């Protein structure tokens, strides 16, 4: 199977290890990975700030860059949701929007739904799962605590066959970490208070590692953790699975 990697701009520039882990993991699972180099950013930073006109050319670029591929895989729930759920608002009459939306999947979703694998490996650590909001509530990677539906989590399901991995039990399973894009800066006080509360929950639960499918949230949490010199580290699920299945 062939798949094109959609590597969010901040992953490309600041977290290359997450992109590489994603590629390695997919290749290990038999996928031929392509990286179309013309890609830049999905436009979410502009769109979420209300500047739809500035985001539109980026959406159009994305539509063009990924048109030739059958599958598009992205190690971020938020950027995937941008492509799948919000491009329609930017380009309501473009037929390519639905096509790209239908073939673009967040990494955990791709592993769980398309490849239908549960990687075997070993990762002897206490891991706290951070469920990023857009993956959870806009892509439905999990059931979420608000709705009365049978409980499920695609991300958690992927970790089931990882030996030694112990998931910690949090008191608030899916509360937002407070990153929220430009919100992290424009509402800095609340944003950081939210992040510290998430960290405190993980400390109480005994997480050694906070793992998640969105590095943006993890960057925010990690920034707070390192400022306060706390021993917990953050890890993208791609990195965790890559390391565990090595």
């Amino acid at each position, binding site marked *: 199977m062939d798949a094109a990697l959609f590597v969010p701009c901040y992953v490309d520039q600041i977290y290359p290890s997450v*992109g590489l882990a994603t*590629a390695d993991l997919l290749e290990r699972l038999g996928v031929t990975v392509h990286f179309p180099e013309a890609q830049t950013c999905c436009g979410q930073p502009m769109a979420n700030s209300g500047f739809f006109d500035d985001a539109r050319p980026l959406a159009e670029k994305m539509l063009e860059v990924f048109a030739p591929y059958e599958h598009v895989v992205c190690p971020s729930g938020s950027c995937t949701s941008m492509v799948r759920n919000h491009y329609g608002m930017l380009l309501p009459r473009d037929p390519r929007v639905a096509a790209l939306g239908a073939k673009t999947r967040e990494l955990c979703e791709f592993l769980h739904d398309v490849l239908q694998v549960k990687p075997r490996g070993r990762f002897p650590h206490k891991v706290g799962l951070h469920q990023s909001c857009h993956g959870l509530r806009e892509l439905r990677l999990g059931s979420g605590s608000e709705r009365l539906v049978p409980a499920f989590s695609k991300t958690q399901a992927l970790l089931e066959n990882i030996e030694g991995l112990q998931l910690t039990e949090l008191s608030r399973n899916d509360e937002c970490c407070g990153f929220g894009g430009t919100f992290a800066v424009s509402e800095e006080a609340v944003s950081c208070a939210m992040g510290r509360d998430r960290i405190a929950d993980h400390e109480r639960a005994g997480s050694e590692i906070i793992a998640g499918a969105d590095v943006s949230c993890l960057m925010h949490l990690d920034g707070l953790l390192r400022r306060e010199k706390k021993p917990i580290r953050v890890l993208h699920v791609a990195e965790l699975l890559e390391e565990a299945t090595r």
Partner: protein
Amino acid sequence: MTGHAERAAEFVENEARLHWHDQAVWFVRNKRDIARSFVPEWEELRTLGSQIKAHTLSRLPAYLEQFERNARAAGAQVHWARDAEEHNRIVHGILERRSVTRLVKSKSMLTEECHLNEYLEKNGVEVVDTDLGERIVQFRREPPSHIVMPAIHLKKEEIGELFHEKLGTPAGLADPKALTEAARQHLREKFLGAQAGLTGVNFAIASTGGVVVCTNEGNADLGTSLPPIHIACMGVEKLVPSPRELAVFLRLLARSATGQPITTYTSHFHGPRSGAEMHVVIVDHGRSRILAREEYRNSLKCIRCAACMNTCPVYRRSGGHSYGVTVPGPIGSILAPHIDAKKHAGLPFASSLCGSCTDVCPVRIDLHHQLLTWRGELASRGLVPLGKRVVSRVGGWVLARTWAYRLFGKLARLFAPLLPNPWTRQRELPPMPRESFRAQWRKRGRAR
């Protein structure tokens, strides 16, 4: 001008209070989760509630006129108010005709929205809010901080001090039971002396002309049973077609609001009791403007349960007053800009867009999408700060060109750690890698 972010920063500064407030409100969210677990068809009920509201809003004029006819037939007088000012004038007119100078009120967010209390007080009417939380904030001369629990921002010790000053309770008394008893004695006097009672309306039934008021304290019942005049104030969106549909909302409301299966009192008023008079004031105050805009229409489905506030991680950590409007939280942030977009331009940005509000909403309002829609509208109307606009424009230009993006990315990795950056006031920047993903990918020779 101070906006939500500045007021929120003040709220966050008191760390002990911040945690206490967050946990007090989260406790109610939790109660809601438990209460809805006993209703296996909860998600269908939400869909049904949403559909009934959509239907009712789609033929609102017809239902309003049907309600008016039936309410009149039941003996109530019906008044129409275009805006807050007209509403206040109408209420005052009713009181003036009967020389009323003492009014008791049960909780009504609409009258808060219209600033009725101030208006009546200026015109010589003593207004006493009889909901305990409302009375507390009225004593403090401040607005409610939450639409269901108006004094949720206050600790029992603070209420003890307030009651010591206002009601003469012993200094240092902070026992909730004793304080409530003191309030009860105080309010009883007010109930007995009142010449008119005013209530809000949770639901108005078109097919019967009746109105329904949901409370936990029974104060609406006392306030309408003792004095000879009952004034019920409602927004145009409170209509339901018939008692059959009402049942759906009664199941949704209290569970979503406080985690109770139903409110302690669900009082139905069909016309005045004998010898008394009943007035229903129907208020628009911007609602028909919302109705006319398809992208925001869903927000009129709101039944004011406050579940979106209780679940909102920003509301819980910034407090209701930080929003600067009568209805705070996610729903307030999409309603307020309709009244004054410039003044409330910051509110749609007071959210991390986590989407929890959308998933708790008992009538499935797409709250976080509407927040995003508002951001777009505010930006296109030039109501977003210039700095943000410039950053977005430049960022968009760079990101649309792969070469510029690569160059800018490299520069950013080199210089970001050296430049002043609001991110680093409380957080470390991530360590910057020497090479981007694409550079490393290319080196591995896997590029095509």
